[in-house]
């Protein structure tokens, strides 16, 4: 401001105008993420992944629970049978990644909302990120390294193996 500040100081001349823009620091915004659009990207991701997840999850649920014998058909063989097909491998992999990232980001938002103390927030978020990473890595490995036709010690096919194993 181009003010002619009158410098002949009286005792209290330096006091700042209270409740007028110079407010108690405790109300000031925490350090902000200047010019990074991370929150925007996260927001867009939530919608895109959400839309994709609708298809992925609904088909997943339908195939697993509604078609055929429903829940009773699910066993090792069922899973193995599905993952023998690269389409289902890819399907479940996408679902795993999107759901974990979507859910993980959703959880991050919630932690940001409710964790009052900075330290709690850091802790909760570390646990969250760690579990998301572990689950994603684990899940991915399971899907890719999965071996449907397991042999027992004697080199025989296990009886739970899906039928196609016989033909190999």
């Amino acid at each position: 401001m181009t003010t002619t500040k009158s410098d002949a100081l009286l005792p209290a001349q330096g006091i700042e105008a209270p409740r007028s823009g110079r407010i108690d620091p405790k109300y000031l915004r925490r350090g902000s993420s200047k010019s990074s659009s991370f929150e925007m990207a996260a927001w867009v991701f939530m919608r895109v992944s959400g839309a994709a997840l609708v298809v992925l999850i609904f088909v997943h649920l339908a195939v697993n629970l509604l078609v055929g014998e429903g829940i009773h058909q699910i066993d090792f063989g069922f899973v193995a049978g599905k993952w023998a097909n690269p389409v289902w491998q890819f399907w479940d992999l996408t679902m795993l990644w999107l759901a974990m990232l979507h859910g993980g980001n959703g959880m991050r938002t919630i932690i940001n909302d409710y964790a009052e103390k900075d330290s709690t927030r850091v802790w909760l978020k570390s646990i969250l990120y760690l579990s998301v990473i572990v689950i994603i890595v684990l899940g991915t490995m399971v899907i890719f390294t999965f071996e449907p036709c397991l042999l027992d010690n004697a080199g025989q096919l296990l009886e739970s193996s899906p039928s196609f194993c016989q033909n190999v």
Partner: protein
Amino acid sequence: MSTPTKEAAEPASKIDMKESGGGGEVPSFDVTIQVRRYDPEFSDEARWDEWTVTMYGTDRVLDALHKVKWEIDGSLTFRRSCAHGVCGSDAMRINGRNRLACKVLLKDLDLSKPVLVEPIKGLPVEKDLIVDMEPFFQSYREIMPFMVNNSPAPTGERIQSPEERERFDDTTKCILCAACTSSCPVFWTDGQYFGPAAIVNAHRFIFDSRDDAGDMRLEVLNDKEGVWRCRTTFNCTDACPRGIEVTKAIQEVKRAVLTRSM
């Protein structure tokens, strides 16, 4: 003013004078009002006080508060000025909803139970119904709520078509009462979120064809405490005493931030 309209219309009046005219009692009724009191000067504890007062047909919650303050307990403290919903002083939680006390008629409330009056949530309570508005105004100031136009000013007005003017009409109505921001569950969590009122006032300028600083405001609101924290809960829209479509304005700002970065 227009010229007098057809005189013939006169006798068609539908009023029954005996009913609305002279004589008779104004219907009065008893209202029990419960107010959340807090004065750190005397006690760190908040408490509820209850009074029963006789009120009349046209009285509003503000009148009941005044009656208590003026006739029973002068220490009951709340802000108010215009008394007809245009200054934004008296936003408070009435029966759990954010309203202006001067716009809520008592007879429209369920009077079989006490009327509950609390300060708005999410801002530090100073005394009784008075909250510290500074954090609220701080967010408002941060979104640069003023017109910025760096082109040389014309001698006359800057031209703006009625359509361009209409574009941001809704958000010019804001009276900065904070009813919206203090009804937002995201704001309640930690008070860091800019809040709907700041976004509404940013919207008012972002969509003003005469303004040049829209980009900077969008940048401000792209912050982690900015528009992306809104979870479209619509509490703000429901609370706004001026009928502003608050959530709509927020969504328009979100979309503007998006398009800008694409």
